[in-house]
């Protein structure tokens, strides 16, 4: 079980002060903060169509769990006028139709939901994701291992040995930001971004790791590639994963990649659900 979900279980029982995870965006990796007391989130208007529920300014296990709890409660409540919610590290952006529901009213409903935090209704889903590490699939792995002062195989086992939680999707369709990267393999982004990384790239950027979705430029350190298609508009549901899902990576022999990729392109979902 990942640190985030254990924190969420712990919170449901007692109001413990949660421990912190070494997680943040690359720009402020060093900005750790002391644990903060349980506080009600700030709810801010975002234009006329959204409210931002901000659980904290910094990502902790507790904050991540509370974002997912509210997202879950909102899904369950089906408040008329609410269109959707964008889960991020420490915030939930609730998008609504300003004519169908007044924002004062929605703000009140959200306050109620966050002040009575229950367990997540939906049980956490866990998936195993195949990854071809290194070789042509992880162009930066040699450099990354050298910068971390470890061998490639140690880096691979450290990365594949950890449990991750999907903190959010974005900025591209199906691009999954994962929390849970072991701190000893955290690695600043590349000085020079690559102009093009493959879809399905598995990369380390600061204290986070990610599953790439669409081909594009990136400054993250690419260490492997999954044949999985996290997002496929022709499939239902289009996205395999949801925010809050737990992920384990499983190293596969690099020569299996093409075969698996062909199966993924034919519509097969290669992520194995393990819980």
């Amino acid at each position, binding site marked *: 079980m990942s640190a985030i979900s254990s924190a969420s279980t712990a919170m449901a029982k007692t109001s413990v002060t949660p421990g912190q995870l070494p997680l*943040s*965006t690359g*720009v*402020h990796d060093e*900005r750790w903060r002391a644990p903060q007391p349980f506080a009600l989130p700030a709810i*801010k*208007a*975002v*234009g*006329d*169509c*959204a409210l*931002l529920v*901000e659980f904290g*300014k*910094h*990502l902790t296990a507790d904050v991540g769990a509370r974002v997912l709890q509210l997202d879950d409660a909102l899904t369950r409540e089906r408040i008329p006028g609410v*269109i*959707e*919610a*964008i*889960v*991020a*590290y*420490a*915030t*939930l*952006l609730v*998008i609504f139709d*300003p*004519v169908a529901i*007044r*924002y*004062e009213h929605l703000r009140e409903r959200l306050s109620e939901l966050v002040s009575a935090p229950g367990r997540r209704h939906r049980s956490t889903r866990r998936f195993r994701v195949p990854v071809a590490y290194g070789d042509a699939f992880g162009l930066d792995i040699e450099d990354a291992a050298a910068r971390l002062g470890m061998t490639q195989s140690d880096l691979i086992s450290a990365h594949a040995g950890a449990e991750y939680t999907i903190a*959010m*999707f*974005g*900025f*591209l*369709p*199906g*691009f999954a*930001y994962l929390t849970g990267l072991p701190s000893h393999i955290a690695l600043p982004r590349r000085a020079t971004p690559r102009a093009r990384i493959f879809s399905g790239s598995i990369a380390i950027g600061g204290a986070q790791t990610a599953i790439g*979705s*669409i081909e*594009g430029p990136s400054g993250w350190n690419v260490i492997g590639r999954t044949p999985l298609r996290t*997002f496929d*508009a*022709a499939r239902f549901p*289009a*996205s395999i994963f949801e*925010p809050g899902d737990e992920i384990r990576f499983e190293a596969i022999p690099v020569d299996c990649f093409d075969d698996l990729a062909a199966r993924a392109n034919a519509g097969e979902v290669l992520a194995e659900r393990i819980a």
Partner: protein
Amino acid sequence: MTALEIATCGPLTTIQDCGRIGLSRMGLPAAGAMDQRALRIANALVGNPAGEAVIELAFAGLVGRAIGGDIEMAVAGALADITCETRKEVTHQSFVLRDGETLRIGPLITGAFAVVAIAGGIAVPPMLGSRSLDLRAGIGGLDGRALRPGDRLPLNGSRVPFLSRWSAAVPLDRDAPIRIVLGPQDDAFTERGLQTLIDRPYVVSNAVSRMAYRLDGPPIERRPGVEILSDGTLPGSIQVPPDGQPIVLMADRQTIGGYPKIGTVISADLGRLAQRRPGEEVRFAMVSAHEAREIAAQVKLSEVEIQFGKYPAKSARAEQPMFDAARIGNVADAVVDASDSATWEIPQRPLWMLTSGTR
């Protein structure tokens, strides 16, 4: 099947509708027409549902030919010279392109985006609930790409005969300020930074796309040392990167952003911002979240009125228009006092316009 064969078009000629709603949490932008009001007006003029898919033109015009039948259509949004074979047509008024005739829409004159609505809609399959092209994900539109010369765009065709021309009331609010609500990260900026955004004029830079508009102007001062965690964005989010030049996210936005967002353009004004061309001025005006909501409610009301023909736009086809005023000819000639930005080009103002005050 009736089709529109594209002879020439600009590089960013796409199919768009009211957008792909509900998948932002998965990283998918809503996409959709850059000027949603133009979308609704054009569709109303040809009797379509308000959110039906249209052809969106960006800056450039389009030349196309009707194949296999007559096509009833209307252009809305940015103004352009329009001819059907030899007949002159105008923006914001429906017309028919006869089978075999050539439609010529010139480069857009005012504004950046125009939409071409076609009665009965465009026969491309919806993907994830929308026909809008999402360029980065390569979904929607015609085969997941922009239109190009040689394409034959399949049309559903209209099931009702063309009875009469319809014209739309179009607000003359092109130069009015773009209204924003401050936040959610206005606390990342100094008092002076906030004043700069509200008081000083900005100019639309050349870096404009369906994803974002970058503005040039006095840099907005940030509080030192403030960094934010990436969070969700909206179309209209005004991000300010370290250089202080604001970037307004548009229909094809990234769904998560890591720069502080000083404010958010209200939904009623985002299409108006989209119509500003590079080099044109943008001024922002601040409204409260409460005022923004009231404006959204007014816009909703005006949409209902567009649909039900209280403006001289078509409501139900094959019905008598509700007023004679609904049959006015050339709206482009019926320009009223442009000094009042709340004035609409209509002979009779609906009641709500009289009570809503000026802005």
